[in-house]
Structures are given as structure tokens and as C-alpha cells.
């Protein structure tokens, strides 16, 4: 039974004053401070409302602008891009913005930081909030000067009066707190000028290569990640891990551990499946937690071949049984009859881990009147709800402080380390830190599911796709981390969009059908960079290449020929990537080139060319170069966007060549970087990145948009080099040259 934990309806003004947030300065609020209802212990899904944005931007005495950034930082740089939007509206420079990651009592709840939405979903509300603040300040200037606001002109970090007098924000912001209530009428909104929308071509902050405000802290080791948080009197905790997914605690005996010097307490809670230890000496923790005698009730044996047998597309095809039909039109049989070249193929991808470099950590301090959590999570409000529930406290008692994450990639929506710390702190009565080690990170998180695809497609005599029959199976991703009781209901009524992301090909397909099933296994599944987009694109774009080869056509030409006329932006990046790579040139023996493209979430178009070299002596596939062209609309910070694209390309190389988790006896076998390798510096290809920015296109997703086509581009290049297809990821020299 889940117990609802609800945020009480809270007038936003009362909320701000209560939290002590409103120390001084100018805050703008709407007159109707509607509070939102929040689901019980569920991730935060709701998109931002413009009014929410008013609480994010505040003018401080002295004229500094404080920006409580509603996007969590994990290296994607959204807080920097959004700071540029704030600066554009307020005519300020970077050093005048104090961009902070708010604690949960400093802003109304906001949506979890996922899906590369940081800029496209928040550009508008942040611009609105900052523009509203600017106009409120203009009102203060007008009042001070005894003039109509229309006569008060914009200046640098302030305003200019008709007689040339300069009024900076610092001159206007009083030292006592001022809340200006503005009406949220649509008329007022219509009249509001939004420089972030108007100044195209003449932007002052947007589009600039601003450097991240935390760079210096990062290169000097001063950035405080959640792993680095230290409180006075803090104790150290560690939790004993179940040996398999779903193992239940039978009994535990903590006497031996309790007898160890430095150990304060052993916490055993059977109902919660929890065994942990608290110590004032961090150096004995690992030994102490192992000294607890524990018996587990083991679940049914779970091994890799069982999981692969469940997620086997051909099994479902044999029974013609798929849960969801994504799209269907025309007559597949008629289309098939038109095919002069027909191809069928199966493509498989593996279970994968986030393997972000910082294993997660949390510090909790549970007191009578207040609970504080320090963590790095993509969804601090979810952590707040989960912690409140775990230790049975009111939601309003719990405050979550957010730290920069050492990588997120979808894996840090939950922050279990914080919950563990909270349980231990509640028992110990002192602040407690819990740090996961690498093994825990691999074993106790959730994963990218296996995908198994089958495509039957063909080309007509004039090079058009004749038919497209695509079936696949995987596991639910978006709803993966839900508690079982809820998930069972959800599965019945909902097809998992995350699993299906990117499964629809962008091409014109007269006769086609795409079906899939999302099946749960005992393996914990959840969001991983780009969700289904990378595995799905791998299947689609591999098949397109197979068709081009079968028809003897250039793969760029075949793609352009089959794209619908409205896909101009995708066509443009394809042509741009091909031009960057000087596509069509001959390469030496054992070298090859491949191309792939895709549209992420219906928004961002990306095309990737990969060049590989096959080293027969070392028996290795090497990725030598990559070229990527991306159209993500308006580029708020080219430096950040290029960095994200390079990160996507490298992530895609790792996915293509290395990543595979396997399960034995209900646990993952790869528990550190010895067996779960990621791409190294030596293996990273040369990269060339181009941004295609059509005029008047709003900013769209960036953080995982270029990932989709990478694996297919590499597989297609391997075919070009060897005449052999890599249809199973990760690919390897052995795999490509085996006759299996």
C-alpha cells in the first residue's frame, strides 16, 4: 500500500516568506499563487508554468540577479544556457548573475531534469520570469523618477531616463524584501517584451560562448559534489546489499559488527529489506558491514539466457503477438511485391549501465523538526518525497540540497543513497553520510534494457522503400522505476513511450507497420541516455544501409530520395555531414565509412559519419574519425552544444564497441571498469562537429540528440570496411568475423 504524502496547498508568497528565501530584494509574484498538487512519491513530471518562473529570478540589493536554476547540473550545462536567457532579458553581464541550484524550499517544485529538455522546455518560462522582473524594476525606476514607465529606457544592467540619468538595478533594489505582485492577465503578458524572442540576430548574451561559471572551481578541485559534503559531527553509513535482484532479508545478526571499535549501530529492518551500519570511523565501514551475518531469501534463479529468451523478437513474431502498434498504413504484402531487393534482419542491443564517474552519495540529517538531505539527483523533489515516505515524515519537514552531479545520464532520478542515509540518520540521531562504491553502483541501480528488433524491408526498382515491417521487444523504461503495484496497472493501459522513442523511421513508407512489446523482467530498468532512441535508431539506420547496399545505391542518396519533402532539416544535416566528411572519397583497404541520421523526439535532426579501420593484427575495430551535423534550432551556447555532441559521439562509440552487462544468479557480473569498459582517450576518434541553425527555429533538445545515429554509422562503416554486418551490440572484431 502506498501512503500519499502531500504538499499542502501553499500560497507561493507564504511559501517564500516561510522559507526565509525572501531575505531582501525584489521578487515578482502573480496575484494568484496557485500551488500544484503533487503525486505521491512519483518522479516530477509536470512541465513548468510561466508563473513558476517568477520565483526563479530575483534582484538582490546591490543589483545582482539571483537565478535559482530549475535544471540540475550534471555536465550538460543547462544552467549556463538558461543564465544567458536571463541575461538577455535583463541586459546584464555574466558576472552579475548568481546562478544557484535551489534547495527544495527555495522554489516551487519543478520537473525532473531529463530528456534533454533543459533549454527547450525552460527557455520560454525563464525568459518570461526574467522579463517580468525587468519590467517590475522598470516600474520602480519610473516611480523613483516620477515618470511613466514608457519613458524609462533600457540601459546596461539598469535603465536610462530621458535626461540621460542612469539608474542601475543596484540603485533600485531596496534592502528590505519587496514582493511585487503582478497580474497574470493575458493582456499584460502580451504586452511584455521578450528580448530572448525578439532580438534574433542581435542577441547580446544568447548565442555567445559564455564559459561555465563553475569551470574554475572544477579545475581546482573545489566543486562540492554530493560525495564531498561533510557536516560537523557526521557519521558514516553503509548498507549491506542483497546478493540478487529481489532477494529478501530473512534474518540478520549485527553483534559481531557492533563489537567493532568505532561502530555506533547496526540497523536491521526486515520490512524495509534494510541492513546497514553506522560508524564514527569511515575507515572501518566496509569491514563492519561485511561482519553482519545476514540470511537472504533468494528469488527464483535469474540468468542471462532467461532474460534473452524473454526479450527475443522472433518468439513474438512466431506468435504474431505484440502489445502495441506504433503505426501502420497501406498493405505490407502489396509493398513486398514491389520490392526488387528485399531484406530481413534481426538487430540486438545489450543491457547497459550509466557508469557515471561519480558513484552516488547522500548525506542526511534527521532531526525532530527538520530533515535535511544533501545529494545529487536529477529530481530533488522526488528525493524529497521518497525520503519523507521512507522515514515517515511530513513532506514540508524535508529539505533537499542539490549538488552538481558527477554525471547523470538518466541514472540519477532516484537517489537511493540519500534514502539510506536518512534511515540511518533517523536511527543514529546524527547526520550520516552514505557513499556507494563502484560495485554498488553497478549492482543496485537500474539499467538500459535489452532491445531485440526484426525488420523486413525492401526497395523498389526506382530506389524507394517498398515496405517496412518492423517489430521489436524491450522493457518499459519511463515507468521502469515505478513500484510494482503501480507498474502493473500502468502496463495494462500504457505503451512505454521511452522504449519506443525513435522507433519511427523518418522516411516515406507507403506500406508499413511498426509494433512492439514492453515486457518486464526481474532486472531493474530505467532511463539511460536517450532511452530507446539509440537502440531503435541502430536497427532502423542499419537496415536503411542494408537496403542501399542491396540496391547498389549510395546510402546518402537513398536516404535523401526517401525522405518526405517536409523533412528539410534532416536532409540538410545529412548533406552537411556528408560534405564535412567529404563523403564519397575512396578509403584505403580495411578502412570504411558509414552514415546514419535521425530525429530526436521529433525535434533535433542529427547526421553522423563514422570512419573505421580494421586492425587485423591486433584483431580490433578502431573508430578513427567522426563527423556530425546537428540542427537543434537556436543555439544558446555553441561551446556547450558542441561539447554535448562530442559527449554523445563518444557515448555512442562505447555503446557500439563495449557496453554489455550480463546477469548471473540474479546479479550483474560486471561490477567495475575491468569488465565494464568505457571508451578511453586513446580510442576516441577525431571529431568534427557542425551546427546547422535555420533562422527563426526555437531551441530544441541537445543533451542526447546526436546519440541515436552513432552506433548505426559505426556498424555501417564496419560493413563498408569488411563486407560484414555487425547486427548485435556491442560489436567486436571477433563477432564481426565469426560466421555466426
Amino acid at each position, binding site marked *: 500500500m502506498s501512503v500519499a504524502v502531500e504538499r499542502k496547498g501553499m500560497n507561493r508568497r507564504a511559501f517564500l516568506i516561510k522559507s526565509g528565501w525572501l531575505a531582501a530584494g525584489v521578487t515578482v509574484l502573480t496575484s494568484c499563487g496557485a500551488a500544484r498538487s503533487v503525486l505521491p512519491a512519483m518522479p516530477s513530471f509536470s512541465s513548468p508554468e510561466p508563473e513558476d518562473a517568477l520565483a526563479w529570478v530575483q534582484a538582490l540589493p546591490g543589483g545582482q540577479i539571483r537565478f535559482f536554476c530549475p535544471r540540475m547540473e550534471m555536465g550538460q550545462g543547462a544552467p549556463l544556457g538558461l543564465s544567458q536567457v536571463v541575461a538577455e532579458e535583463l541586459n546584464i553581464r555574466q558576472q552579475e548573475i548568481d546562478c544557484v541550484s535551489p534547495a527544495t524550499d527555495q522554489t516551487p517544485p519543478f520537473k525532473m531534469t531529463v530528456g534533454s529538455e533543459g533549454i527547450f522546455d525552460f527557455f520560454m518560462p525563464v525568459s518570461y520570469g526574467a522579463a517580468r522582473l525587468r519590467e517590475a524594476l522598470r516600474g520602480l525606476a519610473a516611480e523613483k523618477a516620477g515618470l511613466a514607465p514608457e519613458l524609462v529606457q533600457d540601459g546596461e544592467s539598469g535603465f536610462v531616463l530621458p535626461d540621460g540619468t542612469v539608474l542601475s538595478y543596484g540603485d533600485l533594489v531596496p534592502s528590505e524584501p519587496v514582493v511585487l505582485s503582478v497580474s497574470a492577465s493575458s493582456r499584460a503578458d502580451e504586452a511584455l517584451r521578450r528580448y530572448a524572442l525578439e532580438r534574433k540576430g542581435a542577441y547580446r548574451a544568447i548565442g555567445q560562448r559564455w564559459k561555465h561559471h*563553475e569551470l574554475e572551481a572544477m579545475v*581546482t578541485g573545489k566543486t562540492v559534489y554530493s*560525495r564531498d559534503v561533510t557536516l560537523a559531527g557526521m557519521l558514516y553509513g553503509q548498507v549491506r546489499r542483497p546478493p540478487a535482484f529481489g532477494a529478501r532479508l530473512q534474518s540478520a545478526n549485527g553483534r559481531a559488527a557492533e563489537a567493532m571499535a568505532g561502530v555506533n549501530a547496526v540497523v536491521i529492518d526486515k520490512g524495509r529489506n534494510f541492513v546497514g551500519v553506522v560508524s564514527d570511523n569511515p575507515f572501518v565501514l566496509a569491514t563492519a558491514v561485511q561482519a553482519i551475518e545476514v540470511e537472504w531469501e533468494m528469488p527464483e534463479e535469474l540468468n542471462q539466457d532467461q532474460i534473452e529468451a524473454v526479450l527475443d523478437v522472433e518468439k513474438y513474431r512466431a506468435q504474431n503477438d505484440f502489445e502495441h502498434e506504433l503505426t501502420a498504413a497501406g498493405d505490407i504484402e502489396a509493398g513486398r511485391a514491389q520490392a526488387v531487393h528485399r531484406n530481413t534482419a534481426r538487430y540486438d542491443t545489450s543491457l547497459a549501465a*550509466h557508469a557515471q*564517474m561519480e558513484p552516488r552519495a547522500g548525506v542526511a540529517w534527521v532531526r525532530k523538526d527538520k530533515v535535511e538531505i544533501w545529494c545529487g539527483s536529477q529530481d530533488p523533489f522526488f528525493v524529497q518525497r521518497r525520503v519523507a515516505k521512507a522515514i515517515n515524515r511530513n513532506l514540508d519537514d524535508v529539505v533537499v540540497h542539490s549538488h*552538481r552531479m558527477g*554525471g547523470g545520464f538518466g541514472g540519477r532520478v532516484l537517489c537511493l543513497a540519500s534514502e539510506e542515509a536518512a534511515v540511518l540518520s533517523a536511527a543514529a540521531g546524527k547526520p550520516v553520510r552514505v557513499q556507494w562504491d563502484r560495485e554498488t553502483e553497478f549492482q543496485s541501480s537500474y539499467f538500459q534494457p535489452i532491445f531485440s528488433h526484426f525488420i523486413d524491408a525492401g526497395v523498389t526498382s526506382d530506389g524507394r522503400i517498398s515496405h517496412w515491417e518492423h517489430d521489436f521487444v524491450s522493457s518499459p523504461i519511463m515507468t521502469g522505476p515505478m513500484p510494482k503495484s503501480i507498474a502493473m496497472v500502468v502496463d495494462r493501459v500504457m505503451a512505454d513511450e521511452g522504449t519506443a522513442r525513435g522507433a519511427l523511421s523518418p522516411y516515406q513508407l507507403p506500406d508499413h507497420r511498426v509494433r512492439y512489446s514492453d515486457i518486464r523482467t526481474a532486472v531493474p530498468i530505467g532511463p539511460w541516455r536517450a532511452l530507446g532512441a539509440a537502440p531503435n535508431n541502430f536497427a532502423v539506420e542499419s537496415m536503411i544501409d542494408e537496403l542501399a547496399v542491396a540496391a547498389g545505391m549510395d546510402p546518402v542518396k537513398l536516404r535523401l530520395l526517401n525522405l518526405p519533402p517536409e523533412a528539410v532539416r534532416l536532409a540538410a544535416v545529412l548533406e552537411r555531414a556528408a560534405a564535412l566528411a567529404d563523403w564519397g572519397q575512396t578509403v584505403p583497404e580495411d578502412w570504411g565509412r558509414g552514415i546514419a541520421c535521425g530525429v530526436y523526439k521529433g525535434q533535433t535532426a542529427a547526421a553522423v559519419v563514422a570512419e573505421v579501420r580494421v586492425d587485423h593484427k591486433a584483431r580490433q575495430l578502431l573508430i578513427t574519425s567522426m563527423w556530425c551535423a546537428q540542427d537543434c534550432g537556436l543555439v544558446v551556447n555553441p561551446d556547450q552544444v558542441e561539447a554535448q555532441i562530442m559527449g*554523445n559521439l563518444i557515448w555512442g562509440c562505447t555503446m557500439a564497441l563495449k557496453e554489455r552487462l550480463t546477469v548471473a544468479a540474479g546479479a550483474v557480473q560486471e561490477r567495475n571498469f575491468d569488465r565494464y569498459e568505457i571508451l578511453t*582517450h586513446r580510442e576516441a576518434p577525431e571529431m568534427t562537429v557542425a551546427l546547422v541553425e535555420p533562422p527563426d527555429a526555437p531551441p530544441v533538445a541537445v543533451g542526447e540528440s546526436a546519440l541515436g545515429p552513432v552506433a548505426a554509422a559505426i556498424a555501417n562503416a564496419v560493413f563498408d570496411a569488411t563486407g560484414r554486418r555487425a547486427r548485435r551490440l556491442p560489436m567486436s572484431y571477433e563477432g564481426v568475423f565469426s560466421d555466426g
Partner: protein
Amino acid sequence: MEIAINGKAVAVPERLNDVVLLDFLRDFVGLKGTKFGCGIGLCGACTVHVDGIADRSCQLSVADVAGQEVTTIEGLSGAAPDSVLHPVQQAWIDESVPQCGYCQGGQIMTAVALLRDNPDPTEEEIRDEMSGNLCRCGTYPRIHRAIVRAAKGGQDVSRG
């Protein structure tokens, strides 16, 4: 036993002789810039200098460095006030290298040791030397450029 950490002598309580140097730095000395990534010597996040040579602090005990000089990312720019950056740190900023930043202290420590031994490394030498430092965010191209930039005395060496 004493070790010198960033130029300061630190007395080691005897019971901590066998503690892993990384843990000692973070939880006893309070220097949190050196990071835990894997604990088995494979990721480089914990890289420090021991008498000027880059080493993995997760693979050393405190006793292993007795009487030696340990430098962490916090001590890289010397005992000078905070504002002075090491040229490699500056190159890292000039090339906007860090994404999440977590691996970067280790990357910088390895790069500094590389350039100290080999002030003008070839591409291959950089690749070889830097391959023990993993970065999941994929900052390798910019790390590479930053090292070349630092080797050239801070000049921009064309974008690639």
C-alpha cells in the same frame, strides 16, 4: 609517521597507516578534490602526485608514501593564493574542458605530470599517457586540445 601534503607536513596517527591514501586524503585531511571512481586503479579519478610522479591514490596506503611529498589538485598551483592557476588548469578553462567535471582533477594531475616529463608530447604520447583516465562525459577531444595548448605556452592551437 609524517607525509607532506601540498607542502604541509601531516602527522599520521598510527592506526591509519594502512588506510588507503585516497580515503585518508578525503576523510582525514579533508581534501575532497581527489575523487573516488573505481577503487581498483582503472579510472584515474584519484590521481595525485607522489614526489612529482602521477599515481593512483586508491592503490596506495598511507604508509606507502611515508616521508614523501604528495600533491593533490588543490595544491597544484602551489602555496600561492587561490587566484593563481597552474597553466594546465588555465588551458582547461580556455578549452572549456569539463562537463560534469568529476574526472577532471585526475585528468589534470596526469596531464601536468606528462608535461613535466615531456614538455612537447606528440599526439600519440598524449593518447597513451592519458588513457588511464576515464571520462564518461566524453571530454577527450577537449582534454587533448587543452594539453596541446598548455604545451604551446597557452596559445590557441586551432579548433579541431
